[in-house]
């Protein structure tokens, strides 16, 4: 029989019924739940623009995108459930602040340009973070990520295209696009987490084959991917230190404000309270519906 250590060493897949260390299980539950929560909280900043989308085509694209995010949340909660937890308990942990979601969704979406910018930068950063997870050691998580990454790459292209229409539109539309980039650039870089020098769980996650690349490596990959795209958009990245480094074959960039990241993660970002309050309110308002569905199912009603 193959041991857990052997599977990890062979870069194989750990499956739900396999023996695994308790810490491995707990780490995965925490990470997958946080990922699922990010998908569903992430519906809020963009979802607010569906009714105001400036063309029916953009409206359809945005509606489909936000629906995809709900679907991603569903796959991820299902992946977490294979580890022996219950979705309702994970949601309770979200509602009471015991589990977190991506810091990025604690920033407000102020204009229509934010929708395109979120697609371009936030989904772009998510792809950089998530593509390596398709090879993560835990089978159900890795398989969920394959499907999610395909959809995220659509979202990223749609965001870019939407922003391109603005940056090549009227001067007011261009200014709106630049303003959105100015506000979202640094929070997007924070999505890769604290610097390697201050990332406490990274080493163990790497040893377990959950994490394949360090935070700083992925952040650099994102910057290198995104700088040429900003040039195509004709928008300026708000970083005076941004410069091509011939020797490294990469872009040098300025210092990320990790103190701000720590504040947002600690619950003191611009929209933390609002996001959770919205989620808790929706949950409370739907309680009678879920109770009725449960009562109906228990009474043997044909579902």
């Amino acid at each position: 029989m193959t041991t857990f250590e052997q599977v990890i060493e062979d870069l194989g897949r750990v499956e739900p019924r396999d023996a695994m260390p308790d810490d491995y299980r707990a780490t995965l539950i925490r990470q997958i739940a946080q990922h699922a929560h990010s998908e569903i909280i992430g519906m809020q900043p963009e979802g607010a623009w569906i009714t105001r989308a400036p063309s029916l085509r953009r409206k359809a694209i945005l509606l489909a995108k936000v629906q995809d995010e709900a679907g991603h949340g569903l796959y991820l909660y299902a992946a977490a459930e294979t580890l022996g937890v219950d979705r309702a308990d994970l949601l309770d942990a979200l509602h009471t602040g015991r589990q977190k979601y991506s810091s990025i969704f604690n920033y407000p979406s102020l204009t229509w340009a934010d929708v395109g910018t979120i697609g371009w930068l936030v989904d772009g950063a998510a792809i950089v973070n998530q593509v390596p997870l398709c090879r993560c050691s835990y089978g159900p998580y890795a398989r969920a990520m394959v499907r999610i990454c395909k959809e995220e790459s659509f979202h990223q292209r749609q965001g870019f295209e939407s922003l391109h229409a603005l940056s090549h539109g009227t001067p007011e539309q261009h200014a709106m696009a630049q303003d959105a980039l100015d506000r979202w650039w640094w929070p997007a870089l924070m999505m890769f987490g604290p610097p390697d020098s201050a990332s406490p769980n990274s080493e163990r996650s790497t040893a377990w084959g959950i994490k394949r690349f360090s935070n700083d490596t992925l952040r650099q990959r994102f910057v290198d991917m995104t700088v040429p795209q900003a040039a195509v958009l004709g928008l300026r990245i708000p970083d005076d230190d941004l410069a091509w480094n011939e020797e490294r074959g990469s872009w040098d960039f300025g210092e990320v404000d990790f103190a701000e990241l720590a504040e947002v993660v600690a619950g003191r970002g611009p929209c933390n309270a609002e996001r959770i309050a919205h989620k808790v309110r929706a949950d409370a308002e739907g309680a009678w519906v879920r109770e009725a569905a449960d009562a109906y199912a228990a009474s043997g009603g044909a579902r």
Partner: protein
Amino acid sequence: MPSTRCEDGPDAGTAGAAASDRIYLLGLADDALIASHRLSEWVARAPDLEEDIALANIALDLLGQARMLLGYAGELTDPVLTEDDLAYLRPADEFRNAVLVERPNGDFAVTIVRLLLLAAYQYELYAGLRTAADARLAAIAAKSVKEVAYHRDHARLWTLRLGSGTAESRRRMETALAAEWPWFCALLGDDRADRSCRHWVAEVLGTATLELPEDRVATPSGRDGVHTPDLDAILAEMREVTAAHPGATW
């Protein structure tokens, strides 16, 4: 510029027919567009994740139907208009949607009752239009009827669950039915499709052990372009971005 039917028409009679077809198309299109708007207000606040996905999916289907129908209606307009011209620039009193779909969401029971009634109505209309002489409308109807059959079934299942789930869900369904029924009656005439629609709804309500409300016709129906202030509010929100940037493309 693609030619319009009016220009193609051999005589004034055809131009008149095109105008009435256009108004008929706008009724179908606007029902779908405005219902989609209301359903998309549920995004990120549905009772659970599965329902969030389902309501967004229905909203997306309805938006797709609205786009096909508005595109067609726009081509029948002289000069030709796009789907976005019709959605974003048309005055509220030229909207032909049923008032039923413009009313505010309320609770989930109201949304389910309204979806049940709308989907039952659309199902019969689209089913009949599959054999319309107008091939383009027939094709739109053939695609849409499949989508609406799913919406109708989704609403039916929730009506059963909520009708006999708990005392609270039943009370909310009764309240919602009493409030929405007159707006549904306002839409119905006495042709075969309308009778069939009524019959289907009555059967569902019977199975859900919910009483069929007494018929009462609310006014306006919405079909003649007279609406409630709720439609103005929807259009103001829909046009918030475009109104601030006249002439821009997106």
